[in-house]
């Protein structure tokens, strides 16, 4: 949906508002995904959809209705439904007036070739990749996914455009391309993944080569005892663990409810001196939306500066409680989640992966982690598994495969004990480096 199409649609909604104060947003677009396993395509899908969401505000009351019938009759039904909900909703102490027009930074996140990439092109790229896994006598499995718009991983829709009866209009769209491949033989596997706004950055063959290399080196793993090990975490592993910290810790609501390790720590060192964490949609590896679900322009926020706690992200409700401005990290109002840092950046360093490995006498190289979950939110104690390439590091060299571990590790302590990092890359929706961490807690061994 182009800017003009979005504006025309939302104008039709605003025209149906009558005397009500109304906010309307549209999300969606197209998503295409080719899935392969056992060196063949097993699933191949495309979806096109747009969803309209309407919030009617009556003083301090509001109600929301959402639907995908974009006809005039469908719009009238949505407005009536939201209006009815607003009439019976209790008055809110948190309600803010509708925003007026805002100024947003331009973010060019559309790659024209990616927007029109078809199933044959995806099949060709997959064909090149599985030719390599087949040649290595491994099974290739993975995805090649492209999208245009705001359809998320689990079908959730981000905001493409937002408008209200007070003159606000915001629009952002983007393209995306992701290729992920596992190279497997039985329970042994290697893995690689790349993500970008442009499909031209995707090289399925090179990713397959990397996965094959790890898959072949994963043979006959040694069994190491549980314990604390020095580890080098590749960016995909760092990204997953950082996401758990973000989910529990970087929003102002968590701070105001006393649920984050940052509580009472602003201005003091909380993580290691090499750690700087920001939220920045304008980072060249993110190119994310310049506004949030409330239409507030998103400003970059430094959360941790060289280990020192500097801030959290705000929406309008949490900002009002502290008499400050929103940083533009809100979800559509109202919600129970609070503000969220959507574009995390863990700044990288100058080391190479080999240099990080060279600094470990006896430890582990972790390709990827899996099924992470919070055990304790205050210490960001996370459990999860290593996966798809766990290797021994002995006297500064990667030597052999090791059987996978379950870990129970505080991410706060992990980032206090990080002492080396590579340059940051885009991985798992964040921008982050590989990290070397001392004393990472592996708690049990699995069967492979």
């Amino acid at each position, binding site marked *: 949906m182009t800017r003009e199409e979005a504006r025309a649609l939302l104008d039709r909604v605003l025209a149906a508002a009558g005397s009500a104060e109304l906010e309307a947003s549209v999300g969606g677009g197209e998503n295409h995904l080719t899935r392969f396993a056992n060196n063949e395509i097993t699933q191949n899908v495309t979806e096109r959809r747009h969803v309209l969401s309407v919030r009617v505000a009556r003083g301090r009351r509001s109600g929301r209705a959402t639907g995908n019938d974009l006809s005039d009759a469908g719009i009238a039904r949505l407005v009536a439904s939201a209006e009815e909900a607003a009439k019976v909703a209790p008055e809110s102490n948190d309600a803010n007036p509708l925003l007026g027009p805002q100024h947003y930074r331009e973010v060019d996140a559309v790659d024209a070739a990616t927007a029109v990439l078809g199933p044959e092109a995806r099949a060709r790229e997959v064909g090149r990749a599985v030719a390599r896994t087949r040649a290595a006598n491994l099974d290739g499995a993975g995805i090649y996914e492209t999208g245009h718009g705001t359809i998320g991983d689990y079908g959730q829709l981000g905001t493409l455009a937002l408008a209200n009866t007070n003159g606000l209009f915001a629009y952002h769209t983007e393209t995306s391309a992701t290729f992920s491949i596992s190279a497997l033989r039985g329970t042994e596997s290697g893995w690689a993944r790349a993500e970008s706004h442009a499909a031209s950055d995707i090289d399925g063959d090179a990713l397959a080569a990397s996965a094959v290399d790890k898959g072949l080196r994963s043979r006959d793993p040694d069994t190491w005892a549980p314990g604390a090990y020095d580890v080098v975490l590749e960016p995909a592993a760092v990204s997953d663990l950082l996401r758990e910290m973000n989910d529990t810790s970087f929003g102002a609501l968590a701070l105001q409810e006393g649920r984050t390790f940052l509580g009472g720590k602003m201005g003091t060192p909380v993580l290691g001196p090499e750690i700087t964490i920001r939220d920045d949609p304008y980072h060249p590896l993110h190119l994310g939306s310049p506004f949030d679900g409330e239409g507030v322009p998103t400003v970059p926020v430094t959360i941790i500066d060289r280990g020192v706690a500097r801030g959290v992200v705000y929406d309008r409700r949490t900002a009002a409680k502290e008499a400050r401005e929103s940083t533009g990290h809100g979800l559509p109002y109202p919600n129970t989640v609070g503000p969220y840092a959507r574009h995390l950046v863990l700044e990288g360093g100058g080391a190479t992966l080999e240099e990080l490995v060279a600094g470990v006498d006896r430890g582990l190289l972790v390709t990827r982690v899996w099924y992470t979950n919070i055990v*304790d939110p205050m210490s960001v104690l996370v459990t999860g*598994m290593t996966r798809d390439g766990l290797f021994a590091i002995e006297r500064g060299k990667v030597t052999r495969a090791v059987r996978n571990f379950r870990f129970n590790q505080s991410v706060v302590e992990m980032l206090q004990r990080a002492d080396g990092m590579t340059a940051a890359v885009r991985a798992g929706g964040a921008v982050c480096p590989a990290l070397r961490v001392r004393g990472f807690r592996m708690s049990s061994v699995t*069967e492979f």
Partner: protein
Amino acid sequence: MNDHLRLALDTAVQRGAEYADARLVESKREDIHVKDGEVGALDRSESAGIGVRVLVQGGWGYAATDELTRDGLSACAARAVAIGAASALVLRDRVRLAPEPPHRAVWCSDCAVDPFTVPLERKLDLLMRCSEAMRGVRGVTTAESFLSFLRRRTRFISSEGAELDQTSTRSGGGLVALAVSGASVQRRSYPQSEGFFLARGYEFIDEVPWIENAGRIGEEAVALLTADRCPSGDFDLILEGSQLALQIHESCGHPTELDRVLGMEANYAGTSFLTTEKQGVLQYGSPHVTLMADATLPHGLATFGFDDEGVAAQRWPIVNAGRFEGYLTSRETAHRVGEARSRGCVRADGWHHIPMIRMVNLSLMPGRGSFEDLVADTDHAIHMETNRSWSIDQLRYNFQFATEIAWEIKKGKRVRMLRNPTYQGITTGFWNSCDFVCGSEEWKPWSVMNCGKGQPGQVAEMTHGAAPARFRNVRVGVASDD
């Protein structure tokens, strides 16, 4: 609307699909969430769209659209065929579908009181009163209450002649009380974490004693702040039903999905330790353990007349008296384990996503005895209740769960509350250590509302029935470091 389906199907066949089905899904949903006396969500949503699935030269294609016009539907079907042809470019074996009679039927779940006719005021009043009851407990810092209702009508036709029209309604909700003090965050929820849902109408909401339990969970959340830490070591473990439901889901449900077993999920959710040579051979659990898959379970969230590829609902053993027997299968995969017919486990979470193997309702069959009998029979154990976190490896061997609360049982009596309980194990060792499953009087159907699988990711809902059970010598407390 049937014309829409027919147009899409005919277009797909005319363009070269050797098999095609079309699924029109219309859904209606209402979500109401109250947090600390404020409305956090008051959302009503509707969605309608169509998904067209085809086989072209033996390869799958799927396209979905909400442009329900003649042009939109024709274009969608054409896209599906083009995608199927692209799949055939990288194909080892042509997809072969197990036969299924082309059913023609109308099916509807039970719903005595249509939740969409119940006034919003009544629902808000219930949630506000629950919120007040929790917040009335000194020390409760956050109180949340929520209700959610979903109705989905699915019309399905296939090039084999199936014509199905199914409607299901589900209702449910939950309460969560949080207590925070210093570095400790304690949570209690009711009736289970993530809410309690059944395929019923508003009459189900009226039967649950929400208010009566709101104050109790608030008091327990506060008491947990000063409770003793759950000890670490090997203990006998008693799990209440809702935690056991998630244990069943993660360590039995997912590893018996045949698409996982065959490697189709290898890059994302993983594969499975329950490889095909173990079928009928592996002693998965002790003789106390019988797990039944059941798409006919009354009021189950994964109960239907027919699955999303038109296969009739069935009931069959996955684990029978401890022995691993059955898989969750589809028309595409059934022949890989020598079965002539699909078990009917294929579902999608909406029109926009392709149907795939999803867990149907999967339950641990009851044994004998009340919960009091179980406690009286126990010398020393940790009794854990209500899930707080979960994790399991990609082959489904090594798991770790945390629960919200635990109690120490000594000499047949509950002696003290314990905070931050966790347990960990290897699936087959764990289920083989089961030596007591309570009887049918303790058996309840619990819900899982957030089952993620597939790429693009899909969220499915299902029911797992369970009664409390005991497991010997389980590793407890390994995650604790406070």
